[in-house]
């Protein structure tokens, strides 16, 4: 299918992109990997008058360590995240998550900035950045501001980004020793999107006690969320298979509005959120234990 006609710009710098965005306002759409935007345009669910292609802004494509955190440029592809030696050693949850996204083509084109800005309720990264307490940097003509992951996701396909802002960077922590992470996911068979995805990060303290734990869940609700009740049920307790299973039962809080669609009913999602939370925690624990040894 053919998208509606649009004007096309390919700025080479962030400043130029911001200027264009200011000029065209709500009639403009930013284009990164295009793997979410272009299907929408072809189906005419989106018909922007103007497309600003960020693809030439090479300065937004990097993964580097800075001040004890790892900074990832918005235009970094899923494959680059997946293959980064830096992330693999210091914050493996992100590569673990990227590995589960779509297929090779999607991973080669899709970007971390595009995925987060799009905030698809079935996308994978949101679970991981929540579990990592990541920071998300947004730039506008007025300067930059830093948002916490927890405040970034507002609703289905809606983020805290303001009109005129471009997501430029994601910052994740260097994980402390004794930490294990895992991302476990139930795939929608054709696209690979998450029916349920659980990202877990677990740090063991002395005596095998859970010192710190975070669980992010995607696919379950209109927006990804932290499973706070699961975390509470684990923190400070001695880790065991039984404990994890008990805690995972709290994966879906009462007030969560469950998604229900072609791929899975609300009840099924709820049941799977529990199963995959437990599986992610088990994997994270096993990794934490092997690092302790």
């Amino acid at each position, binding site marked *: *299918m*053919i998208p509606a006609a649009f004007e096309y710009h390919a700025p080479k710098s962030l400043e130029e992109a911001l200027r264009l965005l200011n000029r065209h306002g709500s009639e403009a759409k930013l284009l990164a990997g295009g793997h979410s935007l272009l299907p929408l345009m072809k189906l005419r669910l989106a018909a922007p008058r103007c497309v600003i292609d960020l693809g030439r802004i090479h300065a937004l494509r990097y993964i580097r360590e800075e001040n004890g955190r790892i900074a990832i440029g918005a235009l970094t592809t899923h494959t680059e995240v997946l293959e980064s030696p830096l992330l693999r050693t210091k914050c493996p949850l992100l590569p673990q998550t990227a590995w589960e996204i779509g297929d090779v083509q999607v991973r080669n084109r899709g970007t971390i900035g595009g995925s987060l800005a799009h905030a698809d309720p079935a996308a994978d990264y949101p679970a991981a950045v929540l579990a990592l307490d990541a920071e998300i940097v947004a730039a506008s003509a007025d300067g930059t501001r830093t948002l916490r992951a927890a405040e970034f996701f507002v609703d289905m396909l809606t983020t805290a980004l303001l009109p005129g802002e471009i997501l430029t960077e994601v910052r994740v922590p260097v994980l402390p020793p004794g930490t294990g992470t895992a991302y476990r996911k*139930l795939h929608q*068979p*054709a*696209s690979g999107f998450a029916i349920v995805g659980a990202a877990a990060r677990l740090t063991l303290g002395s005596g095998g006690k859970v010192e710190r734990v975070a669980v992010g869940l995607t696919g379950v609700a209109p927006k990804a969320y932290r499973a706070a009740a699961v975390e509470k049920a684990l923190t400070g307790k001695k880790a065991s298979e039984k404990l994890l299973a008990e805690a995972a039962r709290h994966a879906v809080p009462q007030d969560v509005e469950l998604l229900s669609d072609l791929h899975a009913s609300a009840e*099924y999602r709820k049941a799977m959120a529990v199963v995959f939370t437990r599986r992610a925690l088990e994997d994270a624990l096993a990794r934490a234990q092997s690092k302790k040894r």
Partner: protein
Amino acid sequence: MAEFSIIGKPLPMTDARAKVTGLGKYADDLVVPGMLFGKILHSPYPHAHIRRIDTTRAEALPGVKAVATGRDAPHPYGILPIGHDERVFQTDKVRYIGDNVAAVAATSLEVAEQALALIDVEYEPLPAVFDPLAAMQVENPEHWIHSNKPRNIEKEYHHVFGDVEQGFAEAEIIHAERFYAGEVTHAAMEPHATLAVWEPDGRLTVYSSTQVPYYLQRTLSNVCEMPMSHIRVVKPLVGGGFGGKSEVIPLEVAAAVLAKKARRPVKITYTREEVFYAHRGRPISYMDLKVGITREGRITAVEARMVQDGGAYCGYGPVTVLYSGNLLHAIYDIPAARYDGYRVLTNKPACGAMRGHGTVNMRFAFECLLDVLAEKAGLDPVELRRRNLLRAPCITANQLRVTSYGLPECIERVVERSGWTAKRGKLPFGRGIGMACSHYVSGAANPIIRSNMPHTTVHIKVDRDAGITVYTGASEIGQGSDTIQVQIVAEVLGVRPERIRLVAADTELTPVDLGSYSSRVTFMAGNACLEAARNLRAQLFDAVAKKLDCGPEVLEARDERIFPRHDRERALSFEEAVAAALEAQGALVAKGTYAPPEEARGGTFKGAGVGPSPAYSYSAQTAEVSVDPETGQLTVHRIVVAHDCGRALNPLTVEGQVEGSVYMGFGQAVQEEMIWRNGRLMNPSLLEYRIPTTLETPLIESIIVESHDPEGPFGAKEAGEGSLAATLPAIASAVYDAVGVRIHSLPITPEKILAALQEKRRQAASQTRNSGTHPGGGS
């Protein structure tokens, strides 16, 4: 020396190079000077009166060359002799979301799209009905989808063969259950496309992605009010049909009507969404099935009721519902059977023929029920089948004639290859193996439109270049029928296949063939090729006999030479033989035809026309699966399939067809389903409809069983459909073996498995301790 030199060889398909290199031309690849682009306006309502259509604004748009509505093509049509309820554009009311209202032809696709938005249609919505069981209850005639079809029943059939009451009285174990199958569609890779060219002499040439060029020619003649001889239909390469192109599809008529009106060539290609709404796939089916067996496992009686959700138009509907009933037979020995079949209209796109036409859902139900009965009788499911085999040649209770029957061998071969005996009931919890059987016709013994004419005719011409041209009406749609016809002619004439050119499916050049449906082409066009080639060979032999001074009956044609059987050195090359024959009579021509024999045409009861075939193919399969009991996720690891195709004329294409059948059966079994909400399709894209990718497709091991049918060309039968139906119940049986739940509703989704497991746990908990061990071997 081997019996054959070309037959039985795994030759690559004759059109493979064109397809693989991208040089082959499909309908949408065709471009002609002055060509316009057509677009169709579809109804946004599932059921509504049309009060007014105003096309003036669209006509005024620059670039628009024609706008057509129902007034331009008022004649109704349909694929069967009955139920002509379709018009290319509706005038009085629309009956499904996507129904066709008008069309435009413009100088570009963009202009055509803009023009559609300028057509003003005033609708008055009517109550719509989407479920066949509810549709059958609609009492108000004002709300019936077609006013002449009371309570929306398109057609019903009631058959009784043998003494059913007596049969159930004799049964010692009886089981009855309701089964459900969701709706699936063909999802051929090539979207439908038609290029209609208005010729300067007032004739029409139509290039279309069709399985039935001659039916298209006939329908266009009626709708466009032109003699058939003024309409030429040409079938270019077709990228898969599976039944979805086996009746006249609205875009084909729309393109012709627009071309005639604009006096210009017009091309229409459906978007993928339009392909989904054009549909004609396998209907939602509610099946109530009851089977009785003796303690020894012999079937004594069968009772089946089928309700099919046919969508808004008749199409092939009556045939679909008849196949479901009549092909309960001809696979096992069934002494008595009752069948009640209902084809019901709803406000959704029409269903139609889809690979395994009419048999697949009922076969699923039947085989699943056998699995239950085997357990009740304490028999291995394989053993239960062994005890109900036919003894061919034979005539079934509903008068189907079975002449060759490779099912027993199919069963034994898959049992052996799959390791069945060591696995069934013995694998660890979560892993299981299942089996099932299926069958299909090798062409329908009765033509769609009853007549005594041959079902197919083939011409062969040989001229001074010693090239052989075969003119066949048969429609290659990817199944390899062109290749098979070339092989047959090459074998008989003793030449290399490269010597043969095949001209196919062009109504102006090739004699009538009924089309590519009901797996008829290899059998029928194959037989016609065989006869034509033998006739041509006789002419060559006569000429060679004169040259060699011997009798023509001692001659043999092989390896590009013609020679006396017992004196191979005295040979004429094929060229020399042709030259000798041409000397006497100029260009050589020969003809062959095929019509199924009288004895194969079945009974005389109402509905007896559907099901009879000159020969039946058979299939047996095992499926090995694992089920994650926590999530219900089902993985199918391996399918072993044995298919009895008579003689395998080309083992490569047979395997391709068998694998393709299993693949489609697998898709329907575990993940494909059209999901409707108030008449709107929720998943009209390949991404959301989810045909399996190679990643999900299990390992398929195919075994060819050759039962050599007496009527088939060189003993061949069909290979393209018969192996589809067994895949679904084999997987269901394997799920039961793995985790002990029976899912009798298609597709077998993780959610259904999980819900059944939870239900089972609840029941086990509410009972006492004596829950026993699980048939899959316990956890």
